[in-house]
């Protein structure tokens, strides 16, 4: 049962370390490792704190090895935290796995939960019985999933014969079949073509906005982020480096815009108050507003200096914004509105 007043997900100073065996290269190193393997402790998640409110669609982002999958495994109860506390739907995930299973849905995009040799529909039938879903609910939900994901075209095909896109669509249906309030999706659009990606995004948007599910999505696809996520949670080296909306990320990166201008006639020395000219030819210039200076003020000054034939205000790409955060180009930002 979901707690009406509490957050859907609440992590506080969450940490996780693993002991890993390190192996030396070469034959001698391999022999040494065989006889006396060297072990070292690695911190994968380091003091992560955040809250996700019911109905939010949050993008969990980070470079490879940042700890995203481990964090999802901790939130779903597979991994036990080394330190800190975590509650999902008011439950401690690793201590209440069985109960939580009815309240969460999980898709690990690269790993299917469907039975390989059976038709996808048969797998869904099995999951219906595992989650004790009534026949009427089952039929209704399948219809709903089929409407958006067009599953009926291939759901009688054995899973081993499905394409990646078809298989992940079936996996999405499998994860939502029992009507979970919270959904964890680990790279659900990986390896999909643009059409299927769009289909999956429509599906996820519908599940969040119409069905009111809380969705935590890990992805490397910036289009997923731009089109789907209300909020971004960026982690790197096991720490939260940004928590807020895409707009907050732009604002934190000094508006995140570039002003490109084409003049009707050559302009001499160009100096705009509150902006840096980063590129310059006789008739063209590219300017970046200084921290805290709205780009509108820069545009006003530019058009007042000389006749302009073209002027564009371009937002930095999501990719560039996120890359800057990973490179430490933007300060960690407290969650906007929190």
């Amino acid at each position: 049962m979901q707690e009406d007043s509490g957050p859907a997900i609440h992590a506080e100073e969450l940490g996780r370390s693993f002991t890993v065996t390190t192996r030396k290269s070469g034959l001698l190193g391999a022999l040494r490792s065989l006889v006396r393997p060297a072990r070292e402790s690695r911190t994968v998640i380091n003091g992560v704190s955040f809250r996700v409110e019911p109905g939010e669609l949050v993008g969990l982002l980070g470079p490879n090895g940042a700890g995203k999958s481990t964090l999802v495994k901790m939130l779903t109860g597979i991994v036990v935290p080394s330190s800190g506390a975590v509650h999902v739907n008011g439950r401690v995930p690793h201590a209440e796995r069985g109960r939580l299973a009815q309240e969460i849905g999980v898709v690990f995009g690269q790993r299917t939960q469907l039975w390989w040799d059976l038709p996808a529909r048969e797998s869904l039938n099995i999951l219906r019985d595992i989650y004790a879903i009534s026949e009427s609910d089952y039929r209704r939900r399948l219809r709903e999933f089929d409407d958006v994901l067009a599953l009926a075209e291939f759901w009688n095909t054995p899973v081993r014969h499905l394409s990646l896109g078809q298989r992940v669509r079936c996996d999405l249906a499998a994860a939502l079949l029992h009507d979970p309030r919270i959904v964890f999706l680990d790279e659900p659009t990986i390896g999909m073509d643009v059409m299927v990606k769009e289909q999956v995004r429509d599906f996820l948007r519908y599940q969040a906005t119409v069905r009111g599910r809380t969705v935590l999505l890990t992805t490397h696809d910036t289009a997923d982020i731009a089109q789907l996520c209300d909020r971004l949670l960026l982690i790197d080296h096991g720490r939260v480096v940004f928590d807020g909306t895409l707009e907050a990320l732009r604002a934190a990166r000094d508006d995140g815009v570039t002003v490109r201008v084409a003049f009707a006639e050559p302009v001499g020395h160009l100096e705009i108050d509150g902006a840096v000219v980063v590129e310059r030819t006789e008739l063209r210039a590219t300017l970046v507003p200084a921290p805290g200076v709205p780009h509108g003020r820069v545009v006003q000054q530019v058009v007042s200096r000389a006749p302009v034939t073209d002027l564009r205000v371009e937002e930095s790409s999501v990719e560039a914004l996120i890359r800057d955060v990973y490179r430490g180009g933007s300060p960690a930002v407290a969650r906007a509105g929190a």
Partner: protein
Amino acid sequence: MAIHAARTRRLLTVPALSELTRRSGVVTALLMAVLQVGLVCTLWRAVYATTEVSAGLDVRQAVTYVVLALLVQRIRWGSRLHSRESLWALVRDGRIIYWFLRPLGPRRHYLLKSLGEILYWGTWSLAGYGIALAAGLISPPPDARVAALAAVSLLLGQVIAHQLMLGIDLLCFWTTANTNALRVYSFSSDLLSGAFVPLWFFPGWFLTLNQWLPFQGTINVPVSIYVGRIPAAEALVQLGIQTLWCCLLYAMTSFLWRHAIRRVDVQGG
């Protein structure tokens, strides 16, 4: 209760459904069973060509033993197949996490999968038993009491075999791949359980050593009760030993499960 029954029923059918999707697999399994039974019958008749009684058994008892041993061994044939749904494949691919994310948990998942395999392959063995009996290849049990004792012993033997296999399977939580351990286990259990050759043909030291191991409880004991090698009066002692092994192995696999569940977190990103 009804929920659990539906869930159990459904998961029990999964191995059969998976096997039946591969026609070639079904035909191969059938051919292999017929071939194995035909060859062991020929072999043991040849062994008895120059003697009427060997190690206290006549040719009919010996052939009955080896055919039954084969059929009992094939009850757990599913655990020997390199299926994508086997525990080691799930651990290697990381798909094992879904067993932890469902309401019934990994232990129950494994149990129902294993029982489903036993039901599917056991049905084949039962059919083979009926055919072998009808064809006169093997003898029926001498009386109902022996049949009942052999049936109980077979059941306990399956519990032992399940626990042993589970122990080997759980190793893959530490080693990721357990194919070598599986090979060693398959050979050892076939040898020590009497699936290859009736145990009484082995030297004394081997039999003494084997008494301290659980393997003979999986095939040799139930089949020996059936053919009369173990008299009904002694059978109860053997059932007691089998029960003891069931308890000991259950304690061992419970211990391994508890630790394996903590290990699942290190399997990949």
